[in-house]
């Protein structure tokens, strides 16, 4: 059995930062594995530890800088990695969900996995759409926002709990091959062991160009363009009353009347 996990390196922003052009200035950014993908990697690695002959392959769209993040996933137990990048992707103005899903679909076609795990969303752009779009493109069954997974490998069925709005849980059966988008909290991601980190240095990490995966630069064209990046004006306003309840309750009531929240 083969599990493909899509992993993304995301930029994390310090509390204080400056915007330079259409982006946050580089010196305020730190790069790390997307939080949700960490859970997806852990889920795949746990499956590979519980069952025989499970290969875990990670797939990433990202520049060379991302290799350290990818190696961290290898250190946690993934067997090998594919990284898709070339000059065309580097110079693309905006890589939208459609384009990412197209690239990942080409990797899926090449790898032919039984199960694809993605994070629910990425911490930077938070589209929350790549996993499901990928499933549509490759014609796999899918389940989004999975917070519990019980896999029946023999029967080719994934029993999943999905987290829906308003605290509702759905229990679903998904037939493999399938794409599952993994919610944070599904497991407790491990720290990479130091031995794992050492071994990860020699695990295969293949770099593939658009050409290698049978695509051309047209796939990168997007109807979307980023036009601006700005910090919204903060409009928060809080009033704090100090004193005992008898005194402050009256002040609160008066305030609510003033603001028109209550009448009378």
């Amino acid at each position, binding site marked *: 059995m083969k599990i493909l996990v899509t992993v993304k390196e995301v930029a994390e922003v310090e509390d204080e930062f400056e915007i330079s052009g259409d982006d946050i200035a580089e010196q305020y950014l730190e790069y790390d594995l997307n939080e949700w993908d960490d859970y997806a990697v852990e889920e795949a690695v746990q499956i590979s530890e519980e069952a025989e002959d499970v290969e875990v392959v990670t797939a990433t769209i990202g520049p060379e800088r991302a290799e350290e993040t990818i190696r961290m996933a290898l250190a946690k137990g993934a067997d090998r990695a594919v990284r898709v990048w070339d000059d065309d992707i580097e110079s693309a103005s905006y890589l939208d969900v459609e384009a990412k899903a197209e690239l990942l679909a080409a990797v899926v076609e090449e790898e032919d996995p039984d199960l694809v795990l993605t994070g629910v969303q990425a911490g930077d752009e938070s589209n929350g759409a790549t996993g499901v779009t990928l499933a549509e493109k490759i014609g796999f069954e899918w389940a989004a926002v999975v917070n519990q997974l019980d896999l029946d490998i023999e029967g080719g069925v994934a029993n999943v709990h999905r987290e829906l709005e308003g605290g509702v849980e759905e229990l679903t059966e998904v037939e493999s091959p399938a794409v599952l988008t993994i919610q944070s909290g599904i497991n407790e991601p491990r720290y990479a062991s*130091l031995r794992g980190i*050492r071994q990860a240095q020699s695990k295969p990490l293949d770099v593939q160009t658009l050409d290698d995966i049978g695509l051309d630069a047209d796939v990168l064209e997007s109807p979307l363009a980023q036009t601006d990046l700005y910090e919204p004006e903060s409009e928060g306003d809080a009033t704090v009353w100090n004193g005992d309840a008898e005194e402050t309750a009256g002040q609160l009531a008066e305030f609510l009347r003033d603001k028109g929240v209550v009448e009378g």
Partner: protein
Amino acid sequence: MDFDLPDEHRMIRETVRDFCAEEIEPIAQDIEDEHRFPAEVFDELADLDVMGVPVAEEYGGLGGDYLMYALVAEELGRVSGSIGLSFVAHTSLGAKPIEAFGSEEQKERWLRPLAEGDGLGAWALTEPGSGSDASNMQTTAQREGDGYVLDGTKQFITNASVAESILVKAVTDPEAGYDGISTFVVDPAADDGFSVSTVWDKMGLNASPTCEIQFEDCWVPEERLLGGEGEGWTQTMKTLDGGRISIAALSVGLAQGAFDAAREYAREREQFGHAISKFDAIRDKLVSMDRKIERARLLTQKAATTYDAGGDATRLSSLAKLDASEISREVAEDAVQVLGGYGYTEDFSPQRFYRDAKLMEIGEGTSEIQHAILGDELGL
């Protein structure tokens, strides 16, 4: 000259840093207050393969170099001096000498459990009346049957009360001076006549046990002799080169931890309408702290790199230990000052780093002894 860390080393530093921030930092002051050795943290460190970083893989270690070991020691020191100290005493003094001087049987029996993190190592050199001058050692080991009988008292022994094994220096030939000292592996759980007489309350580092231990008619079989009779002092000299690098790294970590706390506070604390970091008095202090840390770290990593390349690291490791331990105390003191009244309270970490840093100028050769070593190295 390449000052960039290899990828593997950087990733290991990141992982240990994450672990320290999540698992150790939140309890760092509590374990000091409780004077409690945190065995559970060492179990977790063992799971991460931290306990055998510079020990060969064939004996259960990670097979890393001293540069990697120094990075790990620094990260531990950055959150907890106690955990860092017990870790470096275990590694440099408890485990490495068995790897360097032990027989194959001794490495399997005594090194493997230490490298795999099943137990903690310790070593016992200092005595109540013999510290920097080991020529006055009173602990004796006399031949009896197919073993030796140990008698004497050892002082300030890190980890002794929680150790799986202790490497004990004892005089086998009182006529031979330094050449009459030998090393024995003592099993605290099994050997009759061994006891821990005191666990000291200290100025700092109270989650790392420092003990006085006694040997009274303590018989050990001859296969516990590490190396040959009379080789104990030469072994000690070789052991301490590596030990000093780890104390230097730990000191850099303490300094970095204190600096981080001071920098964060100075950027947030406002007086006279500005963050105090904007005032020359505080800004200059922080810049000078950062300068000292970077300098000591460079020296430490140079000593580690030289040691790894097999060169003579005596001068560099002594310089690194001397410089890092002194700047660690200075930086921690400045951090207390930056935080003012808060810095003097136990709710903030600088006082802890200040207490912990002081030991670094004393343990594994005082600053005064480092000056003596460095004078010798310079032919003075």
